[in-house]
């Protein structure tokens, strides 16, 4: 078993929480893991990504080779496209549809959506709205993780436990809201 996952978004959007949840679940299943993160200047509103590799055999490189990633999980639609050179032919692209606009030349949304639809295996969802319905507008990242969970070779129960563990320090209420967001993403069906 080997999953090479690229997480993408804009600095401050919470991709590292998604990475941490998958990481915890992987460790829970006694898998090998390498996860490369971006810290520093880009975190100030720039594009950020994380290479997350999980496997049942030892992993050599911290970086995923081109054309081999099994999933791109993105909390921002334009950012999901930036990593297409790494996505394998059979890979999945799972992304939030809500743009984060902090640059003057941000492209028209329909252009982005149409590029995403060109990817054979894609899931695009309004994670912000789904998160809001689930009780917390700030849990969009967990909605995206829920939607992507179908394509990660980890038991869903483990991912749920990991999310609960991740937010435990912040209180029961926060745990419940994030689990609800995860569940809502998981049950999302493309129209």
């Amino acid at each position, binding site marked *: 078993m080997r999953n090479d996952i690229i997480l993408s978004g804009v600095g401050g959007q919470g991709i590292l929480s998604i990475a941490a949840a998958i990481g915890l679940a992987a460790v829970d299943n006694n898998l090998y893991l390498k996860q490369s993160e971006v810290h520093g200047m880009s975190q100030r509103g*720039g594009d950020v990504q994380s290479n997350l590799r999980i496997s049942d055999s030892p992993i050599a490189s911290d970086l995923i080779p081109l054309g081999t990633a099994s999933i791109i999980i993105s909390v921002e639609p334009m950012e999901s496209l930036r990593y297409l050179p790494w996505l394998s032919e059979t890979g999945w692209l799972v992304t939030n549809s809500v743009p984060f606009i902090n640059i003057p*030349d941000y492209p028209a949304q329909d252009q982005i959506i149409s590029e995403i639809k060109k990817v054979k295996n894609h899931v695009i969802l309004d994670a912000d709205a789904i998160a809001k319905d689930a009780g917390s507008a700030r849990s969009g990242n967990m909605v995206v993780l829920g939607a992507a969970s179908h394509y990660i070779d980890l038991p869903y129960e483990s991912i749920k436990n990991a999310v609960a563990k991740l937010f435990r320090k912040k209180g029961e209420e926060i745990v419940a809201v994030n689990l609800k967001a995860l569940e809502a993403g998981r049950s999302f069906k493309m129209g």
Partner: protein
Amino acid sequence: MNKLLLLGDEAIAQAGIDAGMSGMYAYPGTPSTEIMEFVQASPEASSGKIHREWSANEKTAMEASLGMSYAGKRSMVAMKHVGLNVAADGFVNAAITGVNGGLIVIAADDPSMHSSQNEQDSRFYGKFAFVPVFEPSNQQEAYDMVFDGFELSEKYRVPVMLRITTRLAHSRSGVARRKATPQNELTLPSDPRQFVLLPAIARKRYHSLLGIYESIREEKISSSYNVYTKRGDKRLGIIAFGLANNYLAESYRDSEIPYSTLKIVTYPVKDSLFNEIAKGCEEILVLEDGYPIMEELLKGILPGGKTIRGRLDGSIPREGELNPDIVSKALGLPVMIGSEIPSVVKMRPPSFCKGCGHADMYLALMEALGDYTPGRVFSDIGCYTLGALPPYNAINSCVDMGASVTMAVGASDAGLVPSVSVIGDSTFTHSGMTGLLDAVLKNSPVTVIISDNSTTGMTGGQRSAATDRIESICLGIGIDPQHLRVIIPLRKNHDENVSIMKEELCYKGVSVIIARRECIQTATKKKKSEATRKDNQ
């Protein structure tokens, strides 16, 4: 045994704690910051009373670390690669004094300049100072090398460098811990003159250092990490240094490596290892992250040797970080590429956070400078460097920590009056204060704006040594109280701030304007943690 999931930085920190370190010294700098942060947050470090306060800059950190070593205890000092330039005086001379307690200098390099001004390779400093270097290829080695680094350091009484790069610093993986070692007792050096580098003593110590450096080539503690693996295909031999070993393994993930390989992760290396691999193959491929230091050494300068491929002949790009695709290509292996990035995808450079005080400071400064010709704002290293980007385009330099003040002084000497310096609070106490003294001593017509967000912002909000001290420091250095102004960079104060800046720009001497408003990130974090605390009560 249960493994911990740790960043490379965190693995080093945990190892320091487990290996009996008594003091950790550092100034924040990407990608090294998380080492100190981990030690600061560690309950074990707290119960072991490990000293772990941020230092004012890398030089003071280096010297404090050497002082702890003098007293017989183990210490580590961490910095980003350019921080080692600041600490270089202490670093190079610490090799001459040697150490008493074990001393590890962690230099975190940033090839491809993800968050830096250059991609200098700290292995050069190791060679330059005759300091042995460990270059871990993964998180586990990073952990283990701290233990072995301390052992090597105490056996030969020399400092040891641990060289990492961004990729390892900021990548997480499982790490198995070793049994903890107790801290050393306080013991002074047996030779009371060991640390007194008067020329007569320094000459002796330098002579002995050269001998030690040669002995370390054969030393098992370090050289056992370097592994020669002989294989059948003689067309190529591969020498891979540090992290490059992972990319090599990745390139042959689904098949066996056909060529002989030499894994090098500690320096200096015994020549026989190189001779052995060279003897058994027709060509050599050198894979190293950073400068082609070893490639140059292996090539020599005279023609007629073995063909050596690497960064110098274009087999590997001359600049930038290695990755699995570059290595595969150099090995003639296929590189798959997904689809291209669609043209609708635009660049998204970092930018000021919404509500950042630096942005309001720049808006005021741009208006205040409206009557002058452009090109007179010298800035510095920090979040406020983002003032270089549109829509501000407000600054004309960013060179090194503190250079804003001193470059403004030099430019005003040349006749560029007024010259303006924009520097952050933490950068000011790091290396701006001494430059301000130069300015005061010659009464340079410069306006120094200290954009004080009361934290070390760019690296994630570490304590700033300047907090609550800037006014007294400036007055102590000799700034005229009439020309020490404090403003609050908020939109509602814009007009007032512009007029204060205009007044000081006209003054033909040194003025300091402190633009003070807390970093929006740390302010939000504080609010959140207070709210959580109240909820839990």
